[in-house]
């Protein structure tokens, strides 16, 4: 093999470390057999290295590739999509290790490694993922350096140092490029979509759905208000409106379920200052967005839909930022169309007879619509209804009867669902609204962090001359939930995040941990605003704040200026300044020799030649005259001798010198006795 194509032993270790570092963040998404393949690949390659096994034959390689494809198809059911593609890439990565023999294989493997880092970002761009990527990129670069260090048998930290220094030097220009590089839209639509289910709301709701969602401590979105943050009990983040009930499950109306003339949201004339805020959503793989009542958004890509909801044109697959204006005190849909009225009062023809009867009785007793609503809420508050994260499992038929009259234990969706059912049974237009309620206010950067456990369902009832009015039956059962949050509401039950033992949210009561958590969250917010959410618009603002106006000239000056600056700085660090001559092995060894003699009181004067020093030392230590003489002779030969005359054995002689020094441990006669 060409000497330039050899892969040093040490580099193989680096490459295997990289391999594990790169596959680790994907591990939770991968089927087990791919991880097993990694183990097989590493073991195989190490056995090849030790000379026990041989490289896989061509037939074996073809078989493994085919098995890989087959396995991916079995595990994912398709080759299209982000996960199967990444799976294939990772299989290729493992198989490439098995046949790694030449340096050119190592290049392919390591460049593929950089690409695998990118695939990680397609799943998440969180701060932690980015920090981890820093580590894995440094490792890949170190492996790249290691394959260019021939003859290095041991694992040296120097390799890692070279890689980190170079990456650090590359950092400033990367930052400039990151902020200056124009962001244009996708060149073509990417067919790859993630199949991973995300925790979050879905577009239909069965009893128990929200309760199970509330076990998750994941962040749903973060909101930042321009002015003061409203009180928690006013923070009803509307996401979906469920107008249809079928077999005990609520679902939203599709756009084409609506009559053609009602598919556009009604224009509402408003006055007064609205609330302004921006929201950064975590990926949901869904289209709907969240906002407070009567939300409008001027962010491109966000549309207003009927029922005054917000929706994105495409599914939210990455952190997504949009700005919203809301007006809480505006009456909406003061006039209800005939079709609407019919839809919003529709109930299944049979079932829940007891509930229907109760609703009609109460309605007759109350007289007005408002009085009827407060009677129902009173009933929830007065009778022993329990707000719980562990509701009983209800039968499909007559589930509302079962809940209202027997179990009396439920989460928000049970109350909302029962409440709307009763309203409709009494002829009032009513519907279930799903979204989030409340949120945690981070005092550090004044954002509202809304977690999955803030998921909530409530009701909207249409009243003449007032339009749609929000009614939250949960507030009647558990006022703490609305005012403080789920944790306080579940205090007695102890069921808050009972399955998420490791979530830092569970340890909010420890002040230090809580401050750390909030600081980290504030950092995450900055990260999402400035790095992950950095777009055209933000770039434009940034450039304008720096240069007043963005011209091509300013662009070029900044780019070339920073390039020149970085190159100059690196060049200075490499070529200017003190000559940092690492002490040569010879000098190091000779100093050790002098030190051992100095310990016995024989100290070399500055300026004393090694020969004179040796003579003096030999006089003092006659027992060691011979090694002293030999060491000094060899030292002189190595240090001052003409390299030509030492016949190319400098390295061998140096080794011998090292051996001599290590054996030279003089003791005085007294010590000997």
């Amino acid at each position, binding site marked *: 093999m060409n000497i330039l194509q050899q892969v040093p032993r040490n580099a193989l270790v680096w490459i295997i470390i990289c391999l594990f570092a790169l596959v680790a963040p994907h591990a939770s998404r991968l089927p087990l057999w791919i991880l097993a393949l990694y183990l097989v690949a590493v073991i195989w390659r190490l056995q090849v290295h030790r000379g026990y096994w041989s490289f896989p034959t061509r037939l074996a390689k073809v078989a493994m590739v085919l098995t890989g494809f087959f396995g991916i198809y079995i595990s994912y059911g398709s080759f299209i999509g982000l996960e199967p593609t990444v799976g294939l890439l990772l299989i290729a990565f493992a198989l490439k290790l098995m046949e790694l023999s030449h340096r050119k294989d190592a290049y392919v493997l390591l460049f593929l490694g950089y690409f695998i880092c990118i695939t990680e*970002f397609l799943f998440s761009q969180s701060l932690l993922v980015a920090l981890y990527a820093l580590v894995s990129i440094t490792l890949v670069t170190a492996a790249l350096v290691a394959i*260019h*260090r021939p003859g*290095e048998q041991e694992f040296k930290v*120097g390799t890692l140092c070279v890689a980190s220094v170079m990456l650090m030097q590359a950092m400033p220009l990367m930052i400039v490029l990151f902020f200056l590089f124009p962001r244009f839209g996708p060149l073509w639509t990417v067919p790859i979509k993630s199949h991973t289910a995300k925790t979050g709301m879905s577009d239909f709701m069965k009893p128990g759905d929200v309760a199970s969602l509330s076990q998750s401590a994941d962040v749903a979105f973060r909101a930042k208000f321009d002015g003061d943050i409203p009180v928690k009990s006013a923070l009803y983040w509307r996401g979906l409106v469920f107008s249809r009930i079928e077999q005990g499950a609520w679902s939203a109306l599709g756009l084409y379920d609506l009559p053609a003339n009602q598919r556009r949201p009604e224009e509402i004339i408003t006055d007064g200052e609205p609330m302004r805020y921006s929201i950064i959503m975590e990926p949901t793989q869904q289209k709907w967005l969240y906002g407070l009542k009567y939300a409008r958004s001027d962010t491109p890509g966000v549309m207003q839909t009927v029922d005054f909801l917000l929706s994105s044109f495409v599914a939210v697959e990455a952190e997504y930022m949009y700005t919203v204006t809301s007006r809480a005190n505006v009456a909406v849909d003061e006039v209800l169309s005939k079709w609407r009225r019919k839809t919003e009062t529709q109930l299944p023809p049979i079932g829940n007879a007891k509930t229907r009867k109760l609703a009609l009785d109460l309605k007759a007793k109350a007289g007005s619509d408002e009085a009827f609503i407060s009677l129902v809420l009173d009933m929830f508050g007065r009778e022993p209804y329990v707000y719980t994260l562990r509701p009983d499992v209800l039968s499909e038929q007559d589930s509302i009867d079962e809940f209202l009259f027997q179990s009396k234990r439920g989460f928000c969706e049970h109350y909302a669902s029962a409440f709307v059912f009763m309203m409709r049974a009494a002829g009032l237009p009513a519907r279930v609204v799903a979204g989030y309620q409340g949120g945690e206010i981070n005092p550090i950067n004044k954002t509202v962090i809304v977690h999955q456990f803030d998921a909530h369902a409530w009701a909207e009832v249409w009243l003449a001359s007032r339009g749609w009015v929000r009614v939250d039956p949960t507030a009647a059962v558990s006022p703490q939930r609305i005012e403080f949050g789920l944790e306080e509401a579940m205090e007695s039950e102890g069921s808050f995040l009972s399955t998420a033992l490791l979530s830092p949210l569970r340890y909010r009561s420890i002040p230090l941990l809580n401050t750390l958590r909030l600081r980290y969250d504030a950092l995450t917010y900055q990260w999402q605003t400035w*790095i992950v959410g950095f777009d055209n618009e933000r770039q434009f603002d940034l450039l304008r704040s720096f240069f007043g106006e963005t011209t091509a000239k300013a662009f070029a000056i900044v780019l070339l200026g920073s390039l020149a600056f970085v190159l100059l700085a690196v060049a200075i660090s490499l070529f200017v300044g003190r000559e940092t001559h690492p002490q040569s092995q010879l000098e190091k060894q000779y100093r050790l020799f002098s030190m051992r003699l100095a310990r016995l009181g024989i100290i070399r004067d500055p300026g004393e030649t090694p020969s004179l020093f040796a003579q003096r030392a030999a006089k003092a230590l006659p027992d060691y005259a011979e090694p002293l003489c030999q060491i000094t002779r060899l030292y002189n030969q190595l240090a001052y001798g003409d*390299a030509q005359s030492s016949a190319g054995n400098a390295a061998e002689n140096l080794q011998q010198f090292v051996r001599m020094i290590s054996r030279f441990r003089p003791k005085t006669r007294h010590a000997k006795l």
Partner: protein
Amino acid sequence: MWMLLGPECDLVENDALGTKRHSMGIRTRIEARFRGWLNRRIPPAREVILDQRRIFIFPTRVGFFFGACLLLMLLAAINFENNLSYALTFWLATLFIVAILHTYANLSGLTIRALRAEPAFLGQQSEFHLMIKRSKRREHFALHLKWPNSSETLENLIDEDSVIVQLHMSVDSRGWFSPGRLLLESTYPLGLLRCWTSVDLELYALVYPRPIVSAELSGLGANRPDGAAVFIDGNDDFYGFRSYRKGDSLRQVYWKGLAKQQSPMTKQYTAYTNRSVWLDWDMFAGMDTEQRLSHLCYWLLECDRRGEEYGLRLPTAVIEPALGEKHRNRLLKELALFSKERRSR
């Protein structure tokens, strides 16, 4: 200038056989131009310190492949609108730029010094000795050294200040053989860029004619002069003892006697030195120059092996018969440089 013309002339002759003379003319002219330029830029010298005048740098094939990978990554970043992918792509692109300086630094400050070249017979391998000394500023890795057609080596300079390198190369022309320009290259640290230099170290190997065996020469015996046999110190046959004198070879000391507590004695050997041979240019009349030299070379070595005194008679020089390594080398050099340009080395 001899250096410049020599290999080129060969090139024209060799290539003209197979390919069109016209196109080769252009190629050789371009090559000659390049050599001229290179000679002005890096003039031949026994010792060269590498600086920006002498170091060239260009991306390797791997570097271009890396660039293609970056383009792919950028495409992914654009299409997925993924900012961290943008960041990684730009980081690696900048790493490439930073690597230019690091790759350059790996050669910068190195000193290459020509030490010596072993003489060799035509068609054999000669050994060329070089020394590479590091700069005071840094460690150097993966220095790849070779001459065109020579053996190659990879050297690191980490703990040692200098390293002596031996390269082997088969020599194919009699006289002073120049290995050409030495290539010193490195792609350390990332392999994306290649830094190289091409230096003429003015290092020449003396190439003796290729010895060709011929039958026992008829003229060899006839050329024997008067045969007064004189016994002098030599290595051939045991002759007797004499008392040890300071300076006698230890190998010839009679150790057994010494062990028997006798006075130190030295064993004496003799060599027959009376048979002096004249190796004459005219002995191989009818052959061309190289063949004559080859035969002369063989007999020269043969006489040396047999321990017979031999002299050399060439049209250009006459050397009296003698024995010994120095004499042999002197004669071999005469043969090597016969009708070739002589340079004082």
